[in-house]
């Protein structure tokens, strides 16, 4: 399953965003951020303590099941009294959740998390970015591994000079996409597809902001 991968902002940034906002309502989410332990019930409780210690008043807190779902407003309706007492909602979900709440409640929102990427769980507690939704899928020629995403530079013609024993120049914990692709294509007997000189990429497969409307039929 794909998950929205998040990380807690620094306390310094959170308190900067909350400057002048004293009454806070905290919202977590029961889905991705619960799994990554960045915005589930324990993290929301810890945030409440942090805010109280710093002299803020917490009007309430809730962990909604799926913050990005359109039903979130109905769940939050039960908390409306305590939400209305707050100067701001501190939201411990990914940016999809923050924007869902913001658009539904039309109240001041402060994200407590940074949304890093949409990730695939590749092992217990391990998530990898494997697709950045570029709109021009190239993995038919790269053994099913996306160089646009997995290569730090998004290179489509092979490794850069920074590749080092299968690792990326920016972080020895990150795989070199082109070592992965090479190994996969070799295994499949399809190295020829790596030999093809690819022309410049189309970076505007779907120009941002992406928008999709199902055609009536």
């Amino acid at each position, binding site marked *: 399953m794909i998950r929205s991968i998040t990380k807690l902002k620094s306390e310094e940034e959170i308190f900067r965003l909350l400057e002048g906002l004293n009454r806070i309502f905290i919202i977590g989410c029961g889905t991705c951020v619960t799994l990554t332990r960045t915005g589930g019930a324990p993290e929301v409780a810890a945030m409440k303590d942090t805010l109280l210690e710093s002299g803020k008043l917490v009007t309430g807190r809730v962990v909604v099941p799926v913050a990005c779902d359109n039903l979130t407003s109905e769940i939050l309706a039960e908390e409306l009294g305590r939400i209305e007492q707050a100067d701001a909602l501190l939201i411990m979900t990914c940016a999809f959740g923050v924007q869902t709440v913001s658009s539904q409640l039309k109240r001041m929102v402060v994200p407590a998390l940074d949304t890093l990427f949409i990730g695939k769980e590749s092992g217990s507690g391990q998530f990898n970015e494997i697709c950045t939704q570029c709109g021009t899928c190239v993995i038919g020629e790269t053994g099913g591994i996306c160089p646009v995403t997995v290569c*730090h*530079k*998004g*290179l*489509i*013609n*092979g*490794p*850069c*000079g*920074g*590749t*080092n*024993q*299968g690792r990326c*120049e*920016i972080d020895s914990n990150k795989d070199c996409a*082109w*070592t992965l*692709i*090479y190994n996969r294509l*070799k295994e499949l007997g399809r*190295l020829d597809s*790596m*030999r093809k*000189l*690819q*022309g*410049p*990429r189309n*970076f505007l497969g779907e120009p941002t902001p992406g928008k999709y409307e199902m055609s009536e039929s």
Partner: protein
Amino acid sequence: MISSFRNALDSGKFVVTCEVAPPKGLNLEQTGHHIDLLKDKVDAMNLTDHQSSVMRFPSIGGALLVKEMGGEPILQMTCRDRNRLALQADLLFAASRGINNVLCLTGDSVMLGDHKTAKGVFDLDSSQLVAAARTLEKGRDLGGNDLDGAPSFCAGAIVTPEANPLEPQLIKFEKKIEAGAEFIQTQAVYDLEKLKDFMDYARQFKVKILAGIILLTSAPMARFMNKNIAGVNVPQPLIDEIAGAPKGGAIAKGIEIAGRMINQIHSENICDGVHIMAIGKEELVPEIMASAGLTPAAS
């Protein structure tokens, strides 16, 4: 002929190039000094392009300075900071000023440099940049539009002969040649047996290859490169040799080692030339050449 560097490559002589780094700031005194010192001794000098992603005076400005001072520049261009419009525009500008040698690089990540949160562009890659130069030569741009006036280039690229794993690197090397690279400067090599293995393979392609030589200045510097620079492997005996130099004599030993390697590459005809990277010690290039028994290019 579009450049004296291409003449040198075509002449069959043993070609020597070196690097000059533009300054961090506007003070061009040291860069100018290095250019003045080296312009008549080497066949061409590379102007690095924000090397290691550290923002500096632009490589094209350095190349113009070399030109103005009567030297032969090789304009290094990375794909890190410019999209295809800007890269093509800079290629046209370079050609308009008689800067026709271009070395096409992908470029280091901005994360390795001194502007770590900048956007890395990588609209093109190194092989596509070579192809872009060749497209401009045909009087067209990458959008397929006609140009009013077409440039000519002596275009090159790089290879890491000791990359690990090697084969993906070689596949990319072949693509660079297919895209139109006519010369290749290699990442630093220290193990000449491995260089010979690489050249046994590379000789099948119509491309001139200059072996990269980085001046070793101390044993810790050699160990640092082994640990931190991808594809650079200084063998232990060389590290021991420089570590065993008398106090204050490490650089002299480094010059001796570089000279010895260049001499062997030259005398055994292993490569078509060398690319000497003295990294901050460019004034030592003439000594390295002398130690290698090479006479200055102009003589």
